């Protein structure tokens, strides 16, 4: 069902990337503020500010900046932490802009393959806690299906 797959893919983000390092090293790049400052942000941006409290329910906050786009703050809360395997956190832009106020959930999995790491990033929009709770199980069911879908795609990429 190609049309269906496209429709699902169009509403969320899935990026699979293989790094030439073991999962413990790649995971470390996400779990230390000093490491994150070295790579966070697209081309032309630096990440001068990053503070993380790596525990479930712990917050992180950082800032990326570029000459023409100024300072951009972002923040979130860690939801799941499985060292070297899986990291789930919320992500929200902490300043005015088209995406301000829209919270997302970012799920990253790390899989060892021949000494390398296959890193899969899945990002889906997520409404505020109040609205999420008022929707009850409906949303979490949708999210489970998205997770399964992400795994399927990850396997296809691997094949």
């Amino acid at each position, binding site marked *: 069902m190609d049309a269906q797959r*496209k*429709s699902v893919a169009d509403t969320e983000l899935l990026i699979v990337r293989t790094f030439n390092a073991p999962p413990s090293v790649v995971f470390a790049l996400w779990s230390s503020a000093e490491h994150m400052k070295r790579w966070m*942000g*697209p081309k032309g941006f630096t990440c001068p500010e990053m503070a993380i409290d790596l525990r479930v329910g712990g917050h992180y906050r950082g800032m990326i900046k570029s000459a023409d786009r100024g300072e951009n703050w972002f923040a979130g809360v860690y939801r799941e932490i499985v060292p070297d395997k899986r990291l789930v956190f919320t992500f929200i832009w902490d300043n005015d802009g088209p995406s301000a*106020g*829209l919270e997302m959930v970012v799920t990253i999995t790390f899989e060892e393959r021949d000494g390398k790491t296959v890193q899969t990033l899945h990002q889906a*929009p997520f409404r505020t806690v109040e609205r999420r709770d008022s929707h009850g199980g409906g949303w979490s069911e949708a999210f489970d299906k998205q997770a399964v879908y992400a795994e399927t795609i990850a396997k296809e990429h691997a094949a």
Partner: protein
Amino acid sequence: MPDLLSVTFSALADPTRRAILARLTTGEATVNELAEPFEISLPAVSRHLKVLEGAGLISRGREAQWRPCKLEPDRLKAVDDWLSVYRRFWEQSFDKMAAYLEELSEGERNGRPKKKRR
């Protein structure tokens, strides 16, 4: 009042509604046709259609009984634009991540496991 993008994402945050949109990419369809692949009642499908219509993702014909549903691609385009910004954000961050990993492993080969920072 939530912003338009949040309304759109809210409407998309349901597998049945995404499947309905997928079906509509192949052309207009009636409620009955849309309900066919699902194990849910017609009123339930109608509720999903109301949400999709409210978010501007679909429009419906005027005839009272018939009312075929049609995909309105503009809102999906807005989602796609929004996602492409993030795609760039992460992909370019990961380019830097790969370069940084390279730097780290070179430091290790040179017997400097931790890069000294001034």
